[in-house]
């Protein structure tokens, strides 16, 4: 018993450098952000004076009343939705095709995954050039130029500079979504492929002999088996999309009328460009809450399964 106690202490001592730094850098700093979000530090003077006047939830209330922040929330919603949908559809399609082991299997697999290895800022820089619309109709650029060469002028539009919106969906986001899906659909593909390789082929063959079509095999067998993997992919992708700061910052920035703005960019600008520290912190905490709603049940669930 005594030995066990000593062992625990040694374990704890070995973990302590990591535990202490994480306690400060994660939990301590989150606590401090929460505190700042409850203060009135929206000018440089108040910040320097370290004024301790709490304003309660006022920063949050005014934040949610701001047009820019409301736009940000809609943008996040639609961006996340279409980003996840795009990655799932393309990733699952590619994984099912590659699971049949066509010729060039490995080449294709590596090709579809390589964007995962490069920086968001590289992706943003390249896709910005591809989607920059130029001055229509006389001076098109990027894709619009390609459309002109192919005689498809009717497809030309302003891409990420367009301020058109439909049911609060800013269509300018399409360009950003395409870039993000380009980078992350390989991830879903790899996750699905890893799962598919573990499925017993006899199960599928038996179903085929019983007269099931390929589509039925997919919807009745593959998809249910892969449900936990799909769910993991959805959560990870949703979490990526809430953190997509670097991609959007380097590709389009906030855009005209904030059409491609997201809370992460607003937070960055509020805090580091206009000295609105309390507003910036409030945005950060809203972001944290959104991620928490997503991740905490996922972590709890993972641990439960782990323990069994």
């Amino acid at each position, binding site marked *: 018993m005594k030995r066990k106690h000593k062992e*625990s202490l040694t374990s704890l001592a070995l973990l302590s450098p*990591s535990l202490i730094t994480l306690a400060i850098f994660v939990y301590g700093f989150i606590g401090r952000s929460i505190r700042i979000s409850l203060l009135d530090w929206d000018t440089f003077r108040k910040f320097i004076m370290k004024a301790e006047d709490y304003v309660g939830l006022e920063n949050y209330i005014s934040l949610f009343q701001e047009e820019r922040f409301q736009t940000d929330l809609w943008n996040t919603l639609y961006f996340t939705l279409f980003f996840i949908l795009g990655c799932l559809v393309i990733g699952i399609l590619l994984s099912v095709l590659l699971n049949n082991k066509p010729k060039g299997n490995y080449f294709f697999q590596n090709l579809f995954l390589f964007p995962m290895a*490069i920086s968001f800022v590289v992706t943003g820089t390249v896709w910005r050039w591809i989607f920059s619309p130029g001055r229509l109709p006389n001076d098109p650029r990027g894709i619009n130029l*390609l459309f002109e060469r192919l005689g498809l002028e009717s497809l030309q539009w302003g891409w990420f500079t367009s301020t058109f919106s439909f049911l609060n969906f800013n269509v300018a986001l399409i360009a950003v979504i395409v870039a993000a899906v380009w980078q992350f659909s390989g991830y879903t593909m790899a996750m699905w492929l890893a799962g598919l390789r573990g499925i017993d082929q006899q199960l599928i063959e038996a179903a085929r002999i019983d007269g099931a079509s390929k589509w039925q095999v997919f919807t009745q067998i593959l998809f249910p088996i892969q449900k936990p993997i799909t769910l993991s992919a959805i959560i990870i992708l949703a979490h990526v999309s809430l953190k997509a700061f670097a991609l959007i910052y380097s590709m389009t920035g906030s855009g005209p009328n904030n059409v491609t703005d997201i809370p992460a960019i607003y937070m960055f600008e509020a805090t580091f460009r206009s000295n609105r520290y309390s507003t910036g912190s409030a945005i950060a905490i809203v972001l944290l809450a959104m991620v928490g709603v997503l991740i905490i049940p*996922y*972590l709890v669930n993972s641990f439960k399964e782990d323990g069994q």
Partner: protein
Amino acid sequence: MNKKTTKEKVLTYLTLILFAVFFLVPMYVLLSTSLKSFSNVSIKTMWQLPVDYSFGGFLQAAKELAPNVINSFYLVIPATLISAMLGSLNGYVLSHWKFKGSDILFALILFGMFIPYQSVLFPLVLFMQSIGLYGSIPGLILVHVVYGLPITTLMFRNYYKDVPDALTEAAKVDGANIFSIYRHIFFPISIPSFVVVFIWQFTNIWNEFLFAVTLTKTQSQPITVALVNLAGSQVVEWNVQMAAALLTALPTLLVYIFFGKYFIKGMLAGSVKG
């Protein structure tokens, strides 16, 4: 039956090739633009191959980015090594020297991997200023080590989990302690796991932008920040911008090409269950 499978094959390849084109378009634009000469780089010809190939864009980009490339290596190598080492220790303790509450501690560590870093960013800047590490590469190394701990701990823990407990129990009976068991049993079998973690951390820290842009000054900026500054400037030619983007992507692309298998392992390990 035969006709049907042929049709299916054609459809499969058609789809795969279509997506291959989609995935290659940005690479085509990057390569063909960056290889154009300054006089040939007009917007009107952006979809065409260069008429006269030139490395002028690359030379210009390399000249502008050289200090940042060096900064990135100074940042990435120590941060990768330290975060892997600590992750290995943590993973070892959390998988084979469990104690009451260690699983909860592990969960609390893991949470740090999922937080949006915006939620710690401003206090982090203030903290780095107060300890005098703001704007320096060692400061950025510290930050990447700390926020890299959750993922490296997770990866090593999942790897060590499969080592049978009987092995450690037997060594304990022989009088080995927590350190000697790590040194003689766990560390030597960890090489594959270290490779995965090294590659994952190298790629992530090289590619990182948010910490880099908020915690550095001009002379300590890593390459991702320099690329964004360069690409945002109106006076820099397109061929230089694209060459700069390629240079930024090159180290991690090479790692991917040569160690793709390990990169994918690391990527899949990030989904907690691994």
